[in-house]
């Protein structure tokens, strides 16, 4: 294991032990002040209408936290290769651990010193949402940390190279496209689901974000890649912003490669140049341009006729005057 991966496993293990220990110690501390049956569900009016025994609730929380811990530890241990779901599995594990522990805290807080569960008042909305929000933060941090741990990617198998010569005094730009209509399907589904949840289910808080995310995903169904003296730029769908710009000064190597989604984390926008120094825009398996940047960063984008695009970019990088 590399040093960073050892550190990742140690950090994850410490986190897991800390959360479980805090849960058990906390449960022991409040055990006697809790009624044998706890109120665990409330009607919108605030009256309790669902309950569980102390023991069962603690057991349920421990099982969920345990499963989350397993996911997080597995992601941290990794296996030495970049697998597409690793950061997400770890993030999900961290989220579940924090959210369930938080729910335990909220339940204990509401039921403290109550004589019977019927009289327990429900938590305020802010308090009820807190475990989920804090869990999301924990999940985000875990995903970020796990993405950083992944080892620097090995060179990709190049596809047939092309050469491009620039006549003296000439300036060149190359524009390439890549479209995957299939990616539109899940996006459209999410948009419709969001609208349905909003209008039919009466839950605008859930439906609207769903529809919004779906609309954004539509932008990832096609990309336009431009190569010129400034470097490489990627535009997403019809969106004028954001635009991924890779400056020529940062580029150390250019290659046309055969992109295998499993090597780059799946389909869509994978990774982050800023956070993980590694990013890939994968719309489909097949030709793409790979640029290796300073300080070990890598950026890949699937695009048709990648061989020409890579040749143009490489020539513009260090122009060799043709005779």
């Amino acid at each position, binding site marked *: 294991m590399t040093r960073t991966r050892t550190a990742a496993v140690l950090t994850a293990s410490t986190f897991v032990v800390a959360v479980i220990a805090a849960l058990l110690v906390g449960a022991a501390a409040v055990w006697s002040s809790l009624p044998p049956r706890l109120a665990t569900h409330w009607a919108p009016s605030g009256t309790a209408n669902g309950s569980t025994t102390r023991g069962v609730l603690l057991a349920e929380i421990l099982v969920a936290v345990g499963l989350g811990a397993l996911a997080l530890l597995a992601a941290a241990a990794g296996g030495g290769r970049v697998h597409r779901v690793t950061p997400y599995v770890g993030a999900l594990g961290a989220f579940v651990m924090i959210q369930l522990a938080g729910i335990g805290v909220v339940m204990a807080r509401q039921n403290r010193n109550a004589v019977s569960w019927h009289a327990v008042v429900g938590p305020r909305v802010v308090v009820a949402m807190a475990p989920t929000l804090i869990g999301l933060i924990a999940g985000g941090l875990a995903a970020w940390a796990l993405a950083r741990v992944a080892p620097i990617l090995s060179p990709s198998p190049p596809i047939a190279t092309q050469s491009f010569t620039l006549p003296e005094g000439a*300036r060149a*730009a190359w524009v390439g496209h890549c479209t995957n209509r299939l990616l539109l399907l899940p996006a459209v589904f999410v948009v419709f689901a969001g609208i349905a949840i909003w209008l039919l289910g009466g839950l605008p808080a859930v439906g609207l974000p769903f529809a919004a995310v779906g609309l954004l995903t539509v932008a990832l169904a096609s990309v336009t890649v*431009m190569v010129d003296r400034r470097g490489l730029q990627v535009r997403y769908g019809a969106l004028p912003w954001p635009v991924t710009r890779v400056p020529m000064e940062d580029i150390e190597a250019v290659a046309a490669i055969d992109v295998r989604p499993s090597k780059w984390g799946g389909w869509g926008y994978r990774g982050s140049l800023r956070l993980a120094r590694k990013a890939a825009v994968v719309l489909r398996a097949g030709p793409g341009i790979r640029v290796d940047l300073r300080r070990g960063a890598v950026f890949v984008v699937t695009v048709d006729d990648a061989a020409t695009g890579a040749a143009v970019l490489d020539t513009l990088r260090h122009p060799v005057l043709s005779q």
Partner: protein
Amino acid sequence: MLITVTESSPEPLYRQIAAQVRGALASGELAAGDRLPPVRELAAALSVNMHTVRRAYAELRDEQLVEMRRGRAVSVLAGTTRRAQVAQMARGLVHEARRHGLTDADIRTALEEQL
């Protein structure tokens, strides 16, 4: 689509750009519905004035190959591939005819006879 421009060429920059985009349209590399690079982006990419790119795009719009709408990117019209091919052939014909010293009237007569 590859676009190369040379300052030292006798052909004005905007013509060079228009010719190469027309070539991409004729070959089908750019198809109906596709968008051309935004004026500002292509100008920055080639280190030319934005007016140069706009003029190139305007020439293609006048040939009814692309559509320019305010606030939207320039998009390729339907049926453009064929029209672009014909436009390319027509350009070549006119260029050659003029090289041989034919007047515009001569060229029109020659075409009319064929139709």
